[in-house]
């Protein structure tokens, strides 16, 4: 059965292996059977030196978004998504953190890796990983969201069979550990007039973004650990930049170089890509911070409701501008709203779990969540967002997500 949320199941999940007397809601006079696992020794203590999920969870994996236009180009330029419909709490397991790669995952020997800091600094410096790890360290919980998450601007590209993995899977959350970038830059000595910092990755795209020095000196980190262990190769091993609240691609992975200058460098990733076309033909540029947003993860697209009765509606909310102050939930498509409970901890630039008890009577329902952040900004409807951006935007969609619970209990993407 589907773990701790018996109300919702992945469609097609087999009930095979479950003894009939254990099926919920059906009274039985038979004694509960003794589980076979109690009658013999389990797997050896040292059988799993690095533990993995239970074999029956093998379907909880990253994958590309459904749709031909979302498949990787030549295998290495693409993205895979976090399966939020199968996750609980706010932390994304390291093996399920989304990735978006421009040239695949490089293989880097940490003892060979170097970080070069140069440009408008008093002392150009080269750091080894060992040297970086000697700085005072800091750990913080933050979400990371790709600016291309939730591609709902162009209606023709939206699919009703998309799950929350397809719609919101370019979002993850982890505890990140590293050094404050401000401390590293202070070692080099930032010269007056340095207003921008080029960050460059050591992948085959040499991915580069220009970052305001004000952000670099504020809350930016150079990270080597994620959820307590070394970064996974797909997350930038051995070193990545992390910019809390900023669009994901600016947190450059496999970081090898930081160069300070007076002006932005106008790289491909801040001109040709990661800019958004406005209705008047101009393009919005340097749109860094991810705005307030939320999504119901249970029930959500692709899940089935099962029998009528009590359910908990559950989801995640976040804002790149601060904390989540409030999440409202609607079961009637936004006609009426109720305040959801926010699960502690509620942290700055971090996912917040919200919950609302719900008696589902059976029959159709249109579920939605609407978040408000600590700046007072409220998540907009899709219509309101499109009225501002036009249909040719590609990035920073943060509209209210609708899930249609159908009469047959199947849940579909109603965007």
């Amino acid at each position, binding site marked *: 059965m589907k773990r701790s949320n018996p109300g919702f199941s992945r469609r097609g999940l087999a009930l095979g292996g479950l003894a009939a007397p254990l099926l919920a809601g059906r009274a039985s006079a038979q004694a509960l059977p003794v589980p076979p696992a109690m009658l013999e020794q389990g797997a050896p203590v040292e059988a799993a030196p690095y533990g993995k999920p239970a074999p029956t969870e093998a379907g909880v994996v990253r994958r590309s978004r459904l749709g031909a236009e979302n498949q990787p180009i030549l295998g290495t330029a693409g993205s895979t998504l976090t399966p939020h419909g199968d996750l609980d709490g706010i932390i994304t397991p390291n093996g399920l953190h989304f990735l978006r790669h421009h040239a695949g995952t490089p293989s880097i020997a940490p003892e060979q890796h170097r970080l070069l800091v140069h440009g408008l600094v008093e002392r150009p410096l080269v750091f080894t990983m060992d040297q970086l790890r000697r700085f005072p360290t800091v750990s913080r919980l933050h979400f990371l969201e790709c600016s291309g998450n939730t591609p709902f601007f162009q209606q023709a590209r939206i699919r009703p069979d998309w799950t929350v993995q397809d719609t919101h899977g370019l979002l993850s959350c982890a505890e990140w550990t590293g050094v404050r970038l401000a401390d590293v830059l202070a070692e080099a000595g930032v010269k007056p007039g340095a207003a921008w910092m080029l960050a460059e990755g050591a992948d085959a*795209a040499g991915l580069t973004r220009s970052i305001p020095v004000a952000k670099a000196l504020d809350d930016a980190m150079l990270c080597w650990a994620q959820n307590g262990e070394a970064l996974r190769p797909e997350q930038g091993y051995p070193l990545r930049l992390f910019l809390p609240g900023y669009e994901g691609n600016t947190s450059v992975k496999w970081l090898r170089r930081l*160069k300070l200058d007076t002006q932005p460098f106008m790289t491909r990733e801040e001109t040709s890509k990661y800019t958004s076309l406005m209705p008047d033909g101009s393009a919005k540029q340097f749109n*860094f911070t991810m705005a307030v947003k939320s999504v119901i993860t249970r029930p959500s697209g692709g899940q089935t409701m099962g029998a009528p009765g009590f359910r908990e509606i559950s989801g995640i909310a976040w804002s790149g501008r601060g904390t989540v102050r409030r999440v409202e939930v609607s079961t009637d498509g936004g006609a009426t709203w109720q305040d959801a409970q926010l699960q502690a901890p509620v942290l700055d630039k971090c996912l917040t779990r919200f919950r609302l008890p719900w008696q589902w009577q059976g029959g159709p329902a249109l579920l939605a969540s609407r978040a408000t952040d600590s700046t007072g900004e409220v998540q907009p409807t899709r219509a309101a967002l499109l009225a501002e951006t036009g249909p040719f935007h590609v990035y920073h969609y943060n509209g209210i997500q609708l899930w249609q619970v159908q009469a047959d209990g199947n849940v579909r993407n109603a965007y």
Partner: protein
Amino acid sequence: MRISGLVAAAALLLAAGHAGAQPRYGLGTPATAEQVRGWDIDVRPDGAGLPPGRGSVAAGAGLYAQHCAACHGPAGAEGALVPALRLAGGQGSLRSARPLLTVGSYWPYATTLFDYVRRAMPFNAPQSLTAEELYSVTGYVLHLNGLLPADAVVDAASLAALRMPNRDGFRPTAEGR
């Protein structure tokens, strides 16, 4: 914007305060000019970072056919692996019902094209082209967009001086000003 500017100014003052100070932790090793030269591959919009040398649109045609056409199409338009890999066409389409974003219609700086090709292309062998080859293939893509004649020679000065059609099409948010 005003608040952002103030924050930036305050940050710069703080940074300036650090500048004269001695390093606090004594970590890191001084980077020599020779070391920096090995990795310093970025190109700025004003042309800083462009290497010596020159190329030609004519030489770029053969290089393009050899290294680029398979994914981007024989002329950077039809035949691209996916629409996002189109390099040419679309000028004047940004305000239309079917905007087509290419080097010619959208990219604000020709220097960005050189920088990106140098660091990331050809897809199967990044950083493999010589400076002369990079100038040539950059020139050829600009030629495919009608921005350089077939007999053009390309070098650092001419690339930095080339004014792209959408040069003034970008509006930075308050965070980027």
